[in-house]
């Protein structure tokens, strides 16, 4: 037993040290991408196309979330840091500043297209028409007193009908992303703030006390009507079919894929279809970005070619393969402009 044990330990130590010897001197010959889980499906599609049609290796793409990606991206320049980060929102000034301080001086910003955020329910129930104000009143933590005075009370609404008599008489139950998610940020900013502004005296607040205005408009209720359902959008879709009375909030591509089970609600008079989002009619849509570390172009194998692939018409054009995956393309002029930016590696300059 002792002998066997020693031999086992010796074998194990050999295996482990042989293994560690493998990474003594090998450089990175693939592109490393981090960032948003919303951009992930699009970036991976491009990466795969790129890996299969060129001599370069397929880029490695991590899904870390926009903020997490920015953090890794801005830790510095160098081979152990990512080359590109995806984001479902624009880079913030604080993040930009951090990048600058850590020696990531030149960054190119590339907008790749749009993503619609939809509210949807099961096809077993009727399609619903919301105004942005309905959404705000149903989901905000504090709402204007229903009795009419100009003060805020804790959200008293339990059913949709109480919010707006034209809505169905069912319990308010909305499954949506947690606050850590970029989808939630965008939804709150576009839908809820939009509805919030329709209430005159709150809109007036914006000029007086911007911070207070934001906290009124952006804070989601926490009493169980809004259910934070994790980041798995497929699960939300399946929960909607199991519970037809509930609504879900998620990205357009999930609605696109599950058109036979769920339907998108009409928001502000526009239904969430590919065409409406592309034309900019649907109010709840946001731009998607990625950011490139210019110093890595020409050093990490394949960077220039990858950027070229991403910004080609066959990828992000009207009929490109990304639109098959649910990315809403930008207008042609914008595409041209960003493609030119990438070619020239135009460094982003942000001011506070």
């Amino acid at each position, binding site marked *: *037993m*002792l002998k066997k*044990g020693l031999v*086992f*330990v010796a074998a*194990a130590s050999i*295996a*482990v040290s042989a*293994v*560690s010897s*493998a*990474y003594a001197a*090998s450089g990175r010959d*693939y592109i*490393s991408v981090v960032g948003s*889980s919303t951009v*992930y*499906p699009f*970036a*991976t*599609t491009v*990466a*795969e196309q790129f*890996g*299969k*049609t*060129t*001599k370069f*290796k*397929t880029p*490695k*793409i*991590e*899904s*870390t979330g926009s903020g997490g990606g920015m953090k890794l991206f801005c830790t510095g320049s160098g081979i*152990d840091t990512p080359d590109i980060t995806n984001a479902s929102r624009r880079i913030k000034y604080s993040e930009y500043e951090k990048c600058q301080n850590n020696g990531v001086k030149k960054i190119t910003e590339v907008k790749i297209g749009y993503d619609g955020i939809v509210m949807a329910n099961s*096809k077993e129930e009727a399609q619903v028409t919301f105004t942005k104000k309905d959404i705000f009143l149903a989901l905000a933590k504090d709402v204007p007193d229903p009795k009419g005075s100009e003060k805020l009370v804790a959200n008293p609404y339990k059913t949709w009908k109480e919010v707006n008599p034209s809505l169905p008489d069912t319990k308010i139950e909305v499954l949506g992303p947690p606050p850590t998610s970029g989808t939630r940020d965008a939804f709150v900013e576009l839908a809820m703030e939009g509805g919030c502004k329709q209430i005159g005296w709150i809109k007036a607040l914006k000029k007086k006390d911007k911070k207070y205005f934001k906290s009124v408009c952006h804070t989601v209720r926490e009493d169980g009507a809004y259910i934070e359902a994790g*980041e*798995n*959008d*497929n*699960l939300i879709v399946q929960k909607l079919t199991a519970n037809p009375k509930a609504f879900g909030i998620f*990205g357009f*591509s*999930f609605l*696109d*894929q*599950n*058109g*036979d089970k769920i339907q998108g609600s009409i928001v502000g008079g526009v239904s969430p279809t590919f065409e409406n989002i592309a034309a900019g009619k649907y109010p709840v849509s946001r731009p998607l970005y990625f950011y490139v570390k210019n110093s890595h172009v020409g050093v990490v194998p394949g960077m220039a070619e990858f950027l070229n692939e991403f910004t080609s018409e066959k990828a992000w054009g009207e*009929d490109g*393969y990304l639109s098959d*995956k*649910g990315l809403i393309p930008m207008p042609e002029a914008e595409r041209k402009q960003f493609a030119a930016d990438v070619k020239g590696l135009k460094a982003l300059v942000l001011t506070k």
Partner: protein
Amino acid sequence: MQSRKKETSMDKMNIGLAKRYRKERRFRLFGLAAVFASITFLGILFVSIAANGWTAFQQTEILLDVHFDTAEFDVDNLYSVNYGALVKNSMRSLFPEVKGRSDKRDLYRLMSSGAVYILQDMVMKDSGIIGSTQQIWLPADDEVDMLMKGHISRDVTEGDRRLNDKQISWVDTLVAEKRLEKKFNTTFFTAGDSREPELAGIRGAAVGSLFTLAVTLLLSFPIGVATAVYLEEFAPRNKWTDLVEVNINNLAAVPSIVFGLLGLAVFLNIFGMPRSAPLVGGLVLTLMTLPTIIIASRAALKSVPPSIREAALGVGASKMQAITHHILPLALPGMLTGTIIGMAQALGETAPLLMIGMVAFIVDVPGSVTDPSTVLPVQIYLWADSPERAFVERTSAAIMVLLAFLISMNAIAVFLRRKFERRW
């Protein structure tokens, strides 16, 4: 008098006996029910997974007559050839009546975008086929696949379907001509990850899991057993060892993501190991499984009867000899149980791997423990979050692969456990 007394106690016993036997039977029944319940539950899980996932082992393919037109080829650069045009030409030749730009696009959509790469690979491998016409089975698009498997129903309105009426009629024509069939899905077992369900495979993740677990097993089993032996047999009994014992028990309850954080800080930031590598994944999972193995091994060592130890010492064995010759073999089944459970847990873990960059899209199958790779549960997690409907069955199929992995891993350990198990 004495005999009467005996009778009464005997009677008492007999009355109690029936009751005791009833209790005995009930107890036994409870046990059986418990085993039955857990196995039933496992059965339900298996059946639901298999029912969802078995269809992923088949893939719809379309038979095309591809003409490798010499005019299209530039021999110096086989990458730049427009292989898409080859596929489109052969699709058009099947349906010459299709005219108009959008109809043609709809027609091309029946074919997987991966068909192009298959042609490219064929030409790369053998440039002799240029100029010839070949009959090739090429994968159909995932929507067609879903239609054939009944996951897209034909009776909803056209707008709610991913395939329109024309496309469905083309598919029906192809089926009638025996040009569209479901075949065994070899891609699933030979390819790495892909964004196209029909091209996605499990091999990259399976190999990644294999590497990661190999590192974990090689480190955690010897270290865990050694720690248990030292703490149980050699360490002095005092407050300190109590503290160590409680602490190790406590480590088992530390959320696994915290181990990921520790791994990030130690292995990546201090030792500068590569991100997303199975080596680091294995190390992090070692940290996580060690407590389980140590606890199980200590319990196993404790349960070896003292008489064995005393007998060995009595015939002149040293302490180390008593342990290695007698106690360890007897404790081994329990240690293996701990290892099985620990490794099973490691096999299914995703949270700590997120911290060290293993939740990623990686197409290439890793060749060593330092190549970037992902593992099976991560692949399952990523697929479960993909919008494409075809990934649902692939998720279940990936789970089946993971379970097969788990079962074969357990089978080895169970064989060893049976070999060493003994009763006194």
